């Protein structure tokens, strides 16, 4: 009998007990689908994280101001409020003392309401230098970026992020118009192209969103807004003095990143009494993400193993029942010339058909992962908007990525499980004494 004939025969025998066979198939199907879905989700999350980290640049080092904890700030606190973070002197020191750095870009950031007529957004006012745009791969869709001339002239000009421009100017062309940031007015000279969020850095949990940003020259920021800002916190206004929110340093060679970061740390340590800054190396984040991914995959394989084990036990259970039920058939076939090996093969074929069907259906359901996640996302967005907005952006933006290896592995393992768990029942069938088997029932 050819293999194809055997598989057909196996299929027909299984069709005698449709429900029972379907349940065995279901066990494998769920296992295979689970493997593919979990791997796809995991790959999606880690891909997202990697893209965001890569976005920060593998050759860059990010130094951020960090507000000290409440107790220590009370010590520092006076009627002049608290003062912390990176200084303009730090920037100068880093630029002059660390030779491996090819470029360093300072930045000051604050939350401010941005208005145009009746339209208002909770914006992020970003004081930056012309380099900032290239550094963050922000491209200008219309108009121009902040220039050196703007810097020197303390110009009241602003570049709007794409989303901010859309919200503030739903109808009119924003270029040449004035927007109000806090109490000051600025002329819109450019609009940045759309940009997806980057990875979370330096203590903030959220990924860096670019869509509420409005960019003004760093010099203008200092002159108009200043270092001292009032923030409303827990009902009381607080005065904070921060010179720079962030300095992004870029080295020529990726190999120099770690050493350069160490030099910057020791340099800052010398001039700061408390650690009111953080030095973040995206390359390290990337390595951490890789490690996380590897650990995650091991975990998934464990889950996959368990679910396929359960599926395999289901198959074995059903095959044992089948073998007992078909004792007579086994006796007949043995009498008519079937060897033990041929009986083993016959029953193995049946388990392979069961497991293979489960595997194929599992793969088919695996391909539904993307559409299903999108469907759930749309349903949650439409019917539970509060839940939706409470979700972290990493989950809201999750795109499952089907991993080809997971599909092949899941299918191969399912068939392997079928063979493994089919061997015992099949051998039991073959080892029956033909005379006893013929006398059965």
């Amino acid at each position, binding site marked *: 009998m050819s293999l194809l004939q055997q598989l057909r025969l196996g299929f027909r*025998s299984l069709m005698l007990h449709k429900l029972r066979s379907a349940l065995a198939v279901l066990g494998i199907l769920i296992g295979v689908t689970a493997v593919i879905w979990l791997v796809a989700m995991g790959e999606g999350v880690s891909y997202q994280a990697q893209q965001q980290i890569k976005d920060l640049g593998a050759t860059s080092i990010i130094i951020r101001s960090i507000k000290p904890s409440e107790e220590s700030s009370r010590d520092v606190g006076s009627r002049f409020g608290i003062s912390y973070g990176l200084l303009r002197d730090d920037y100068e020191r880093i630029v002059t003392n660390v030779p491996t750095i090819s470029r360093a870009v300072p930045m000051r950031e604050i939350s401010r309401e941005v208005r145009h007529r009746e339209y208002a957004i909770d914006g992020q006012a970003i004081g930056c230098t012309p380099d900032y745009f290239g550094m963050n791969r922000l491209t200008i869709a219309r108009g121009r970026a902040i220039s050196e001339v703007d810097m020197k002239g303390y110009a009241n000009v602003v570049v709007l992020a794409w989303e901010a421009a859309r919200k503030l100017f739903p109808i009119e062309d924003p270029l040449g118009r004035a927007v109000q940031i806090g109490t000051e007015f600025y002329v819109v000279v450019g609009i940045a192209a759309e940009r997806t969020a980057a990875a979370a850095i330096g203590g903030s949990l959220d990924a860096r969103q670019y869509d509420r940003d409005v960019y003004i020259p760093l010099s203008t920021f200092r002159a108009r807004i200043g270092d001292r800002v009032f923030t409303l916190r827990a009902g009381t206004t607080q005065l904070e003095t921060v010179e720079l929110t962030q300095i992004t340093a870029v080295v020529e060679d990726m190999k120099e990143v770690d050493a350069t970061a160490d030099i910057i740390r020791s340099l800052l340590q010398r001039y700061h009494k408390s650690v009111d800054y953080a030095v973040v190396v995206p390359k390290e984040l990337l390595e951490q993400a890789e490690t996380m991914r590897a650990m995650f995959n091991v975990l998934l394989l464990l889950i996959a193993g368990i679910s396929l084990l359960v599926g395999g036990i289901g198959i074995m259970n059903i095959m044992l029942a089948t073998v007992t039920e078909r004792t007579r058939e086994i006796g007949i076939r*043995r009498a008519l010339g079937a060897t033990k090996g041929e009986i083993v093969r016959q029953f193995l074929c049946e388990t392979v058909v069961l497991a293979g069907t489960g595997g194929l259906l599992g793969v088919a359901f695996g391909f539904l992962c993307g559409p299903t996640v999108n469907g759930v996302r749309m349903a949650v967005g439409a019917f539970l908007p509060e839940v939706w907005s409470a979700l972290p952006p990493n989950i809201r933006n999750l795109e499952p990525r089907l991993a080809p290896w997971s599909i092949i592995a899941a299918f191969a393992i399912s068939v392997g499980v079928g063979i493994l768990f089919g061997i015992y029942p099949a051998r039991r069938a073959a080892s029956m004494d*033909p005379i006893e088997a013929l006398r059965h029932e």
Partner: protein
Amino acid sequence: MNELQPTVDREIVASIVGVSKVYKLGGHTVRALDNVSIDFRQGDFVAIMGSSGSGKSTLLNLLGCLDRPDSGQYILAGRDVAAMDDETLSRIRGRYLGFIFQSYNLIQQLSVVENIEVPLSYQRPPLPGGRERCLKLAELVGLSGRLGHRPTELSGGQQQRVAIARALVNNPHVILADEPTGNLDTATSHEIMDLLDALNRAGRTIVMVTHENDIAERARRIVRLRDGRIDTISEVRPALPVVSGSIALERL
């Protein structure tokens, strides 16, 4: 013309020599077969009779290579089967023997023609012209119109006809039947016996266990067993005249 032919002994197709089979049950032993010797020649039609427990089934199982004797020899197609391993015995069953059972023993999920085909799937090397042969045999046993039916859709007599066709499909040296009419009424029993008789006339060797006298009368020889030994061997009808056996066999 008969007188002109010399008396030629027919070829011996199966021969058991001094065979014993002992079962140990708890403390005591049962001699199911005790030093039994008998030859089966081509064209023989032997009915094995005896009271219950006399060893009929044990003998038939040995002849069918489903069991091995504890001592003695069993020569089938010129080879001693007693010492062969399980796989070789399986191949010999598939190649040289045909089985007919009291309870038909058809495979329920297969159709008539597929049931007839089963022994062919275990032929190494495969026999040529398989499907055609099945159809011819189905016609021979009068079931051409029921090829696609399942065993449950057939009467007992029809099922036994399928079993007979299945027993013939591998062109066996010996057909072994264990109470082939045991589950059938008298009329149907004789129809089945007519079929076996026709096969025997065409040169088939048949060994049949039965406890019904009128069925046994239709064989050529009756072997009576008692307590595992051959009690008597009686001739009912003369042996089949010598024909060019293999040609006659191939026709069926």
